[in-house]
């Protein structure tokens, strides 16, 4: 099958555009999350998404409404993780673990009430970007603009508090607000990313392009741009390879990302010891 034929399909065009938008968001936010040791927040929020998706399936909502219905639940859970960490005096990883477990438990209970797991829930667990509809792509584009605008507006504050939170606070920055902005933007991104790689593999899309970029980038802005480029490249490559070889798209994207990470690691060693 040649490239022109592959690109002539409407579903492939939508998948490539939607996948690229989501890859940019995941990779950019991933750099902040990885450096702040919050990588697993993607996993936690994804598990909340699982519970929310199970709820929407119970009410037999259409896929496009499902995305919109899941957003407020995941946003509230993201803020819940922050509040739990502050008020219950526990570390962030414990708060993520608690919210994550509640999300999964809710999903399992609801799926059980609905009469067991079905194909729909399975597609959300492992993603199916090739099935993205025009209206879902439109939602993805709107959320992309919102998240990117948020990152651009708060870029310097996010950078400062990622570099060192105490130094940022001593400069008069409201680090609680910055943390809230970061987790809310991440929550929106997670809802979108479940369509690409699925709930089980979202954290891979948040972590892998970022850690690959961190191996080779010389500077913070360079890390953000490299991560976005790696994210888009691997998602496009993953969608194409999975289509041609008839493989699961989400898993293919993750494996390609891992290969890129190994290459970046090797490149870094080469640059250090030529």
């Amino acid at each position, binding site marked *: 099958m040649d490239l022109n034929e592959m690109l002539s399909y409407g579903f492939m065009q939508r998948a490539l555009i939607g996948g690229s938008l989501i890859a940019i968001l995941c990779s950019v936010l991933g750099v902040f999350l990885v*450096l702040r*040791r919050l990588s697993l927040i993607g996993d936690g929020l994804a598990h909340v998404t699982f519970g929310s998706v199970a709820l929407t399936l119970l009410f037999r909502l259409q896929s496009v409404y499902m995305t919109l219905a899941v957003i407020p639940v995941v946003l509230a859970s993201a803020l819940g993780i922050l509040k739990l960490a502050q008020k219950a005096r526990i570390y962030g990883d414990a708060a993520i673990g608690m919210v994550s477990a509640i999300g999964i438990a809710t999903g399992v209970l609801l799926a059980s009430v609905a009469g067991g797991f079905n194909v729909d829930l399975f597609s959300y667990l492992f993603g199916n970007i090739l099935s993205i509809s025009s209206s879902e792509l439109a939602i993805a584009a709107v959320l992309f603009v919102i998240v990117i605008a948020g990152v*651009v*507006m*708060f870029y*310097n*504050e996010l*950078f*400062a508090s990622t*570099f*060192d*939170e*105490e*130094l*940022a*606070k*001593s*400069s*008069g*920055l409201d680090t609680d607000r910055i943390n809230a902005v970061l987790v809310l933007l991440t929550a929106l991104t997670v809802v979108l990313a479940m369509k690409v790689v699925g709930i089980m593999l979202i954290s891979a899309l948040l972590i892998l392009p970022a850690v690959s970029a*961190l191996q080779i*980038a*010389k*500077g*913070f*802005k*360079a*890390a953000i741009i490299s991560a976005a480029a790696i994210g888009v490249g691997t998602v496009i490559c993953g969608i194409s390879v999975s289509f041609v070889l008839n493989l699961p798209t989400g898993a293919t994207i993750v494996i390609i990302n891992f290969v890129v990470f190994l290459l970046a690691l090797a490149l870094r060693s080469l640059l250090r010891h030529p």
Partner: protein
Amino acid sequence: MTEKALTVQNLCAGYHGTEVLQDVSFTVNPGDYVGICGPNGSGKSTMIKIILGLLAPTAGAISVLGKPLGGFHDWQRIGYLPQGLQFFNPHFPATVDEVIRLGRLSAKQFPRRFTKDDARAVERTMEWMGISHIRGKMIGELSGGLRQRVLLARALVNDPALLVMDEPTTALDPETRESFYKLIFEMNREKKATVLLVTHDTATIGKYASHLLYLDKKVIFYGSFDDFCNSTEMTGFFGEHGQHLVCHRH
């Protein structure tokens, strides 16, 4: 009347019911270089955190650069240099230039965009500190001494009226430590900035600071080094040897 650099009145602070500072009062004049010493757990770092607005006191009042701390918003007039970065990641992908520029954020309103003025201020500070040649280097690739210089440049990039430092030389070797102290001393002389420096290095600080604040939850001594060295009360408190250790290089 001249604006005081810092006024601390009857300050009390603590963590989980344990009092760390008890009724601490002192005043710092503009241009003073105050060395803050005391044993571990004496409340030195707690006081610095309160001055920087990172921690709330349980009682008392503080005025910074003439304004009560509660209504203080001129954070660009304060430079802060910590002991080290809280959770420093040697692989953090930031260049020296990017780190120093972060110091300019305190002077900005949302969305805190950098301008050409900021680039010029960064350039000027790097030149003054002799670190222009490493502007493109990654912060994690630098030695401990150079990294502290970069963080000092970040603290100085706004030409602050008050520079607050919390054990900035702890991780440095003696030679680097001495040159670091000299740099602070020059900055205090040339730029007329008030300096508050927390240190355990009582033997060296006497050579550079104009005043000593000795804390042990309460103020044990506050005044000029000359007063400290001539105080028979301090001889009684520290013993002749202890007092000599602080004073011999002054």
